[in-house]
């Protein structure tokens, strides 16, 4: 058994003068404080990567900087799925008795530490160096390709996709730490600058500075008990050119495995924390995971299903689209928010019942998937 005993999250947006290590440290301290643990009690560290400050041994760089001498430490790289992949590994490490308290941490000054061009260029390198990158695609273009096909096969429209941006912005408006606080409409999304059609600026997550951290422990350290009930992964390809058909993507495979590992059905889920790098990502994942029928996710947004007071509250902090995206820490914010919801600490964003949460992360171009169920235990 494993518990998420503490969570920490910085605000996202501009953190002028903060390095990646500063943001990681800030989030890690918050997670330790939340868990009620001292540095000396942490015996495992897993960390993500920083595109601003790449290092072949970031976990030990961080451990030394933060003042921890762990018995287990290394970095993990699975793109946007890294946060949940680290959490899954931490779960298995504490279950196997390798460590008692694993600190999972990521942070990056991606907005102020490098130019937007540098960020876009660094991320485009997930493409094939010989067969894709020379063609000048960007991450939005990889997802734009997927979007064009998904819209073609399932009759989804650009207006449908815009609904997800509007929802995430509405949620961000209720969180003081979010990067964006101005409400937007479907018309605003439709009128925003074209980036990689059919994706426009407001269909895309921003580049942010920020950090996030959790502690995964063998036993709970306080009253709140949030347990990792089960998780699984699926990796079908790296490059969009080599992606399988839409009906055979990894999200469906990983959720089937996670349901089996957890003994949980989608109908048991009360809160959803789903990766949303682009509006199309969120639309597809909701449908792949079974949180909406094929081509029906946008209609569910319109009916309020995914709102704070809806049947399946989704990314109540605003997601990558509007809380922000600082790299690995970006999708970790989804877990932090799920934890706050599950422990009744989400202030004005608090939902009625978050007893069972489904989390899902995606790395690359729908290449790597991690699905995870969290459960509140009394």
């Amino acid at each position, binding site marked *: 058994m494993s518990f998420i005993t503490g969570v920490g999250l910085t605000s996202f947006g501009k953190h002028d003068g903060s390095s990646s290590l500063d943001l990681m440290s800030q989030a890690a301290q918050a997670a330790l404080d939340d868990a009620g643990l001292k540095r000396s009690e942490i015996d495992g560290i897993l960390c993500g990567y920083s595109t601003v400050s790449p290092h072949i041994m970031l976990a030990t760089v961080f451990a030394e900087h933060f003042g921890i001498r762990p018995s287990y430490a290394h970095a993990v790289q699975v793109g946007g799925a890294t946060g949940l992949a680290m959490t899954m590994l931490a779960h298995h490490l504490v279950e196997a008795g390798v460590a008692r308290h694993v600190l999972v941490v990521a942070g990056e000054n991606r907005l102020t530490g490098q130019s937007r*061009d540098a960020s*876009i*260029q660094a991320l*485009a390198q997930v493409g*094939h160096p*010989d*067969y*894709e990158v*020379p*063609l*000048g*695609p*960007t991450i*939005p*273009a*990889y997802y*734009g*390709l*997927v*979007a*064009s*096909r998904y819209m*073609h096969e399932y009759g989804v429209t650009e207006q449908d996709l815009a609904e997800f941006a509007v929802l995430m912005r509405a949620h961000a408006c209720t969180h003081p730490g979010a990067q964006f606080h101005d409400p937007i409409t479907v018309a605003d999304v439709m009128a925003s*600058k*074209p*980036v*990689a*059609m*059919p*994706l426009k600026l407001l269909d895309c997550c921003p580049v942010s500075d920020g950090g996030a951290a959790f502690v995964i422990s063998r036993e709970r350290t306080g009253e709140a008990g949030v347990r990792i009930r089960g998780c699984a992964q699926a990796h079908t390809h790296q*490059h*969009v*050119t*080599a992606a399988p058909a839409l009906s055979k993507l990894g999200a469906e495979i990983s959720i089937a495995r996670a349901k089996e590992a957890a003994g949980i059905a989608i109908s048991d889920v009360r809160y959803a924390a789903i990766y949303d790098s682009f509006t199309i990502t969120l639309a597809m994942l909701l449908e792949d995971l079974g949180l909406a029928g094929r081509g029906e996710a946008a209609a569910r947004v319109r009916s309020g299903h995914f709102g704070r007071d809806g049947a399946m509250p989704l990314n109540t902090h605003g997601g990558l689209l509007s809380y922000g995206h600082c790299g690995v820490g970006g999708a970790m914010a989804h877990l932090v928010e799920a934890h706050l919801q599950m422990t009744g600490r989400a202030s004005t964003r608090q939902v009625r019942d978050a007893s069972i949460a489904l989390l899902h992360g995606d790395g690359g171009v729908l290449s790597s998937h991690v699905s995870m169920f969290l459960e509140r235990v009394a």
Partner: protein
Amino acid sequence: MSERLAGWTMGEQAVIFQTCSACGHVQYFHRAFCAACGESNPREQRASGKGRVYATSLVCRAATPEARAHVPYNIVLVDCAEGFRMMAHGEDGLAIGDSVIAGFKPFAGKLVPFFAKEK
């Protein structure tokens, strides 16, 4: 191992693909082996350049100065007649399902495959 045929990634005006002599698997990304069964030395061939559009995305925001000079440009995935999928550039206005044929165009200092609607 047989000599590698030069395709557009090596500066030639050609699209090259591989077919496994053991299991018949067709692959586009060059390897010394078949990714499906592991058999070495898949047979290399020049593709006809014919195919059908699988997906499109018109790039309006590029990340490098070299690419920005070409904005907007249409990135397409094409299902080629020989049974593999490739990424390329394409004419503006190409729609999913269109029959297309490959040519080549300069882009950011390189010659890249460019698909036009088959007449």
